[in-house]
């Protein structure tokens, strides 16, 4: 396997409404920042993989308009993942492993403010039996949280810890102490225990060892990466298990060399999912979500790539005020589908 590492990351300040920017305008500054920080010129980067969702933006081929921001004149070797950018990072890593590229730019963006998110996410469900019930992501996650049965105080403590951590993250959207008595939206979730709806974008540059050797920058080496999917229907799986997260970590780390970690950035937009994932990964970890995680900013389709970017910052000791002291080994995770249907993990080790 080729040694591949992340050499530069950038993200927007995530916000509820970015009415000032189209998707391309959200993306352009982060592409520019990540490429500049990498030490490579735009056209020295061999491959580009983008990630987004047409439904989220309310128009087909929405990613085509972002090619302007990604820098596609002259043409670029490129692909696009419909979904979260963490999977685009995986695709780029595979292309580099295959020797089809030595370096890659990965970009992801989400503008949830373009539509009504509960209605948009309802459209992911089985169109005959589930979608007509009016379920949305929050209601489905609540069913999972009920199956898990964590007490109200524990859910609150998880949210409060993430929001407190987010105060050290200049990109975070919600940092206020949650009200433990805010009204229930869907039991067991209180209003202030839900993830924010966010607009945002993220970009990162990864490259093979030969390329990184001539760049003078800290590197977050990708020790392993793997993902797995589960069935869609919540009636077809044990909601308390996160089986595909277990399959992903087993594929990434079959010998369990990555049990002891300094930091983990897990995508847990709903508070009960954080302990579920940590149990599924069976890791001993120093700090969880020093960025504040998806509970502090959730630009879906970029949320997972932000986790990878945040973990890369941590293991290279470049996370600023939110730095976990001495962090060198970490895990980044993203999820897709409802109730942790599909999960991806990256295991990172930094050289400062």
């Amino acid at each position: 396997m080729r040694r591949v590492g992340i050499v530069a990351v950038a993200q927007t300040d995530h916000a509820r409404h970015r009415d000032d920017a189209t998707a391309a305008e959200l993306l352009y500054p982060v592409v520019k920042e990540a490429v500049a920080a990498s030490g490579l010129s735009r056209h020295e980067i061999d491959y580009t993989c983008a990630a987004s969702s047409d439904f989220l933006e309310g128009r087909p081929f929405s990613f085509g308009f972002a090619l302007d921001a990604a820098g596609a004149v002259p043409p670029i070797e490129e692909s696009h993942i419909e979904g979260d950018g963490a999977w685009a990072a995986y695709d780029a890593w595979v292309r580099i492993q295959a020797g089809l590229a030595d370096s890659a730019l990965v970009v992801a963006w989400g503008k949830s403010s373009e539509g009504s998110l509960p209605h948009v996410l309802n459209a992911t469900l089985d169109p005959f039996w589930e979608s007509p019930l009016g379920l949305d992501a929050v209601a489905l996650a609540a069913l999972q949280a009920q199956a898990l049965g964590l007490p109200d105080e524990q859910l609150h403590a998880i949210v409060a810890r993430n929001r407190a951590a987010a105060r050290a993250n200049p990109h975070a959207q919600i940092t206020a102490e949650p009200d433990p008595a805010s009204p229930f939206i869907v039991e067991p979730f209180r209003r202030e225990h839900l993830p924010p709806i966010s607009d945002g974008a993220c970009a990162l540059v990864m490259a093979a060892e030969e390329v990184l050797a001539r760049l003078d920058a800290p590197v977050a080496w990708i020790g392993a990466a793997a993902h797995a999917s589960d069935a869609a229907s919540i009636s077809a799986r044990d909601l308390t298990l996160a089986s595909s997260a277990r399959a992903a970590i087993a594929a990434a780390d079959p010998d369990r060399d990555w049990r002891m970690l300094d930091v983990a950035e897990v995508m847990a937009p709903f508070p009960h999912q954080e302990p579920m994932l940590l149990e599924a990964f069976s890791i001993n970890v120093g700090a969880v979500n020093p960025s504040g995680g998806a509970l502090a900013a959730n630009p879906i389709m970029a949320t997972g790539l932000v986790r990878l970017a945040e973990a890369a910052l941590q293991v290279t000791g470049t996370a600023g005020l939110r730095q976990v002291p001495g962090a060198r080994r970490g895990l980044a995770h993203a999820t897709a589908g409802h109730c942790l249907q599909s999960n991806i993990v990256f295991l990172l080790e930094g050289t400062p």
Partner: protein
Amino acid sequence: MRPVAVLGVGQTDHASARTDVSLPGLIRDAIDRALLDAALEHDDIDAVILGTAPDFFEGVMLPEWWLAGALGGIGKPVLRVHTMGSVGGATAITAAAHVGSGLFERVLAVGFEKHSESQALWGLTPRNPFGRTFGAGAGAAFAPICRAYMQRHSAPAEIGPRVAVKARANALRNPHAHLRLDLTLDEVLASPMLWDPIRRLESCPQSDGAVAMIFGAETHARAGAAWVRGVSTMAEALSYPGRDVLRAPSGVECARRAYAQAGITPADLDVAEIYEPFSWIEVLLYELLGFCEPGEGWRMFDHGDTDLGGRLPVNPSGGVLSTNPIGASGMLRMAEAALQVMARAGERQVDGARTALGHAYGGTLSYHACMVLSKEKP
């Protein structure tokens, strides 16, 4: 990239409306055929790569979540690709790269569309952030390109209609094809003008259909396998000052890279399966893909070079003009190219085909995917 072989190919019978199967059933049909072809079971597959055109077609957002079971993807990596019309081609290339990386042994690529459950004009019409909504579908986007081609290269008006006749005649040899029409030139000329210069019979249909390909490492390849020799997926901005769409640089460069990886020139190709949703686009693509010099595409066709039995037969399957389940159309090009070099293309076989090109494009010739397949192992 380590050597990658095509282990199996499966496609549905394509039609206007496959009311006999659900969307998951349609996909499963193609996958089952590919597994049967490769003599493999679902348990043998390490990862699934899905490609489909805009989610707005079937109205299900990120349908790979819903379809994880139908894809045989439970407990496995499922990755979803979307690169506009080139998506089927890009999906096949992504799957080949997964095997080529050494991380996976056997990877399933799937493309589908069930147009009968969708509204393509709406599904293909972007709502632009600036300017007016373009509510005219794909034909209206390509008519000016066809017109520009005719004018710049002084191409006779009958070339386009004759391309349509060739495609449908070839499709008569393909049992899976959607439109299997024994057409005369007069019938094409008499069909209604939809987007001048594109007539109804010079347009692709909307089809229900799916295709699956299984890529595998050398140890799993059987005698007579098709080998992946060169791959590229290129994109360029949708519009920019000075863009010459008739020489779309993403297409020229995509083909150049695939040939270079394969160590061939276009003259070494024995057969090509290219993405021609409208008649005139076929001759334009001959030029982009390096089959001939700029401006010579229509002459190459006129001389019969790309007929079955010609110097470089193009689209012996009948192409996109005969079968167009959009998310699958690009992968059908790669699958048909693989069948040709495996000498398993039945009545549409090009005798002695050893090297083939599969090509797909998307947007206004803004996304391209090229795969060179060969009888010879790299």
